[in-house]
């Protein structure tokens, strides 16, 4: 077979690899000359390019490397999202890393590496390539989680994540092996051809189920979620934000592509598994968030709950559920990173914000941060006119039209529960006297990030139609 080399389809990956290497060199060079490292700015340029490529080439699709790499609208949409997420993380990270005395260039290099992995993950249906990409992403994120190497909990976070991630990868790989045994292929699209028309072999189904379990781990769905609170709590806040948004988005996108391409319509058993996991995830994620006093833990459980909502969209793939998921990922990215960014902005030198007591009365000292927090948390809770409302609306609507009425009802009810713990944060910010009135240090980059995110949360809430149309467009070929 002739090797089909097509540089166009790996354009985003080329850019990321280039910047990854450039960052390494620049960082090493500035370290040796003792100057401050500017790899963060490099990262910004690289991610801006990553986000710009899809905008420029939108709609120009191609495949390469004998069908292994797909550069379709779906991949382009996700690359755009990853670029935005990367930029936002770079904007909010320096302030936190500076506060804890770990402002080092490696953080951004690792970020680039994991974005590279993510970008490959969403542009392939080849399970082996997918797994390699997954590992590229995961290894970098493990290190990011343990970036505060002097802090015990950060190391614990990295370690737990690493061990659990290892188990998940093993299960995933075993699943791939079973699928290969049953179909003789590791490419989801070929699997689909093999199983089309005839009864799906149990061994293939079993393999797919294990692959699914691997995905459930990455998106932090119950009962594969146990690592999430510990890792999110211990990891540096910008890394947490990245895990909660970037990693989850990549895993969801990969799950969507592989599941939809390989088995459609779902066999009954896959549907039942998705149903149960979505049910448990919404329920337990929201319930556990209620009793958290650690804000990062609270947001960890909230991110679990959001994964549960998005699983609804995956179930309702026939009724526009997938476009709802894509839209939700976009909305969720702005609102969730935003909430973490507010925590970062409120932090002080040597004492980053973690516990709810630390934000008591802060809205009176930082009214703009308070307002931003209202916007983000309202969006996470799904209150109009924020984008989160439409995100949930589209998800629940698709679930209802697909016949999953009771799951949608549960989603709505647990959203009500979520309102409790989100509002509790705002109550602490607004309705208590501040324990100290010394304002936190101002940071321009965090400020810019917050402004951008609040704007988009409100903008997506006012003109959702435009973006849902783009999401539908991105999925046309896939469904």
């Amino acid at each position, binding site marked *: 077979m002739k090797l089909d080399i097509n540089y166009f389809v790996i354009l985003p990956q080329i850019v990321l690899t280039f910047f990854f290497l450039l960052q390494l060199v620049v960082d090493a060079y500035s370290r040796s000359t003792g100057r401050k490292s500017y790899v963060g700015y490099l990262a910004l340029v690289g991610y801006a390019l990553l986000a710009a490529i899809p905008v420029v080439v939108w709609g120009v699709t191609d495949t390469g490397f004998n069908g292994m790499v797909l550069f379709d609208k779906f991949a382009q949409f996700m690359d755009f999202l990853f670029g935005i997420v990367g930029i936002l993380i770079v904007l909010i990270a320096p302030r936190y890393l500076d506060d804890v005395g770990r402002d080092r260039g490696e953080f951004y290099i690792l970020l680039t590496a994991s974005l590279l992995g993510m970008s490959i993950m969403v542009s392939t249906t080849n399970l082996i390539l997918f797994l390699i990409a997954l590992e590229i992403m995961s290894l970098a994120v493990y290190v990011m989680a343990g970036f505060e190497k002097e802090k015990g909990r950060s190391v614990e976070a990295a370690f*737990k994540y690493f061990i659990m991630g290892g*188990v998940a990868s093993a299960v995933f790989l075993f699943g791939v092996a079973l699928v290969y045994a049953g179909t003789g292929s590791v490419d989801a699209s070929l699997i689909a051809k093999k199983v089309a028309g005839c009864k799906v072999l*149990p061994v293939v189904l079993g393999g797919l189920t294990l692959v*699914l379990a691997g995905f459930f781990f990455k998106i932090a769905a119950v*009962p594969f979620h146990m*690592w999430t609170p510990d890792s999110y709590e211990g990891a540096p806040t910008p890394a947490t934000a990245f895990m909660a948004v970037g990693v989850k988005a990549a895993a969801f996108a990969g799950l969507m592509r592989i599941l939809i391409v390989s088995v459609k319509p779902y066999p009954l058993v896959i549907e039942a598994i998705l149903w149960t996991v979505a049910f448990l995830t919404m329920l337990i994620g929201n319930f556990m968030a209620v009793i958290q006093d650690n804000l990062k833990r609270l947001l960890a459980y909230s991110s679990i709950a959001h994964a549960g909502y998005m699983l609804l969209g995956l179930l309702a793939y026939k009724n526009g559920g997938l476009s709802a998921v894509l839209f939700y990922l976009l909305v969720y990215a702005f609102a969730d990173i935003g909430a973490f960014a507010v925590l970062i902005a409120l932090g002080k030198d040597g004492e980053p914000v973690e516990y709810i007591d630390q934000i008591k009365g802060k809205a009176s000292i930082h009214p703009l941060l308070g307002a931003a927090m209202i916007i983000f948390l309202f969006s996470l809770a799904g209150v109009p006119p924020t984008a989160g409302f439409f995100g949930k609306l589209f998800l629940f609507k698709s679930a209802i039209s697909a016949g999953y009425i009771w799951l949608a009802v549960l989603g709505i009810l647990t959203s009500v529960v979520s309102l*409790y713990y989100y509002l509790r944060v705002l109550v602490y910010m607004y309705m208590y006297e501040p324990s100290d009135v010394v304002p936190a240090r101002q940071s321009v980059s965090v400020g810019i990030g917050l402004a951008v995110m609040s704007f988009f949360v409100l903008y997506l809430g006012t003109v959702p139609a435009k973006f849902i149309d783009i999401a539908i467009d991105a999925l046309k070929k896939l469904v």
Partner: protein
Amino acid sequence: MNNIYYLWLIPFFPLVGFIINGLFGKKLPKPVIHWVANVAVWSSFTVAVIAFFDLLKVVPGQRILVDPVYRWIFTGGLAIDIKFLLDPLSAVMILVVTGVGALIHVYSIGYMHDDPSYYRYFAYLNLFIFSMSILVLASNIVLMFVGWEGVGLCSYLLIGFWFEDEEKAYAGRKAFITNRIGDFGFILGILLMLVIFKTLDFVEINKILIYHGETLSVTALTLIAIFLFIGATGKSAQIPLYVWLPDAMAGPTPVSALIHAATMVTAGVYMIGRLNLLYAHAPVAMAIVAAVAGATAFFAATMAITQNDIKKVLAYSTVSQLGYMFMAMGVGAFAAGIFHLMTHAFFKALLFLGSGSVIHAMSGIQDMRQMGGLKKYMPVTYWTFLTATLAISGIPPFAGFFSKDEIIWSSFASSRGGVVLWAIGVITAIITAFYMFRLVYMTFHGENRSPEEVKHHIHESPAVMTIPMVILAILSVIGGWVGVSPVIGKLFGVENSNIFEEFLHPVFAHAHIHFHHYSEATEWWFMAISVGGALLGILIAFYLYIKRTDLPRKIALKVWPLYKLLFNKYYVDEIYYYLFIHPIYLISLLFLWRFTDVYVIDGVGVNGSAKSVRFTSRILKYWQNGDAQVYIFSFVLGVVLVLGYLLLA
């Protein structure tokens, strides 16, 4: 249908003004505040004028321009756009709203000069212009409802502007709650509309009515029209929901002029104009509108006779004049109703601004019994006020004459009117002239009766207040000349003298309301009767309040029960209190609050479910104990369960 891509600027400018003053106004100096607000509304007015001339460039039959901003809601079969619509009707309305609004913004600089909440006032005023232009330019009824609620909110905020005064705060609440009752009807109307038409877009609805009007259920159309009219009775202060408007005078006087006289309260009339085709298909609903309007016009006018508060007289007069406008709508003389809406906006805004000028000079006194003889102290206020008074009384050639006479004539000539409505119109016109001149005589003529400490303060208002008044006075004179009835036009040798009606004609053309034909002589006679009636009213007022100032008291004593009935406004407020407010209050207190809310919702519902959630979470917490082994166990358990399910299936 052509596009006009800059229409969104009209609501946009005041929104920006509102945001600037609302967020940062507290820290801004006063000149910046009023410059921001004024520039915003004047910009809107400029855009409106440009849009108006662009509209004129289009062939009369096709004057529908739209500005599709974006799709706002879409779910199932329903799509609601943020889309603005400019046709002759909305063009007239938006010019009135932004034009009169701009003048009143200028006036407010002088009137609110010493108010500590200067920024809040101008922020609300800008927000009002924003909401009102949304209402006017909306191309579907949901967007119109957004504006409808927005102006309601601004009205509430501005009536209770001086909320430290419990009574004023109460007036604000009364306005809001009364409007909510009407809005309930409006919402029902919208929903029923959606069921019947499957669309909420005005242009689409009109298309359906033109081509398939006969196939639709008349009952349903009537119900929609009545529901929407219930909304209109709230917003536009008609029987039975007019009670809030007199109390709304608690707000600053420029607000009364802008919101509670010239613009917001006419929203109901505008809505019927927008949906004229729907109303034309529902004759019963139109008859109800006409009947309610006639009753309102008459009763409100009688209530105005006995009021001594200068603003209260004007308030009842507004209710009464709104009655005229609805009467026109009810008999199908839509253009006449909108015409009166426009002229009324000029002269009634001027009357309020004049009364504001008086109150300003009188150090806040509003009781006319303490005024008198102000003519020599404040000449500009006097002459402009007199102009407006002549206009509202319907004396030619002032603006009010042309519009009011057209309504009175149409109420007779229309196939949907009749002699009773006509009689009500004429009698109300007599009363109107009477109470308006009573007001003028008590305020500006005779001896000055004000307390000594007030007396030497009396002065003419500054130019920033009088110039808007003079402009409105000019409009109150010439504003009616665009709608001269053909019989008068012929006298002056002018063809097509009713430019206004001709301009609006395309909007109302499909309603096909039949008007009986009468000879010109008949028309002249009717005109003579209404002008004569107005003169009669003025004469009586002159006799009672200039010649024989002792008489009013004697007459009042002679017909004491009637006087008391009028003075207490037919006890409507009291009746509403015992019939509705008190019972609802008791039910709310005992059943809804103490039982349902405290016990069921708070006790069982909220706290109960909160407790159960917390309890569950605490149990689940033991699972999450921080042990990596337990986590892996849980993971593997998950895998086993999933596979187990697979095996069983």
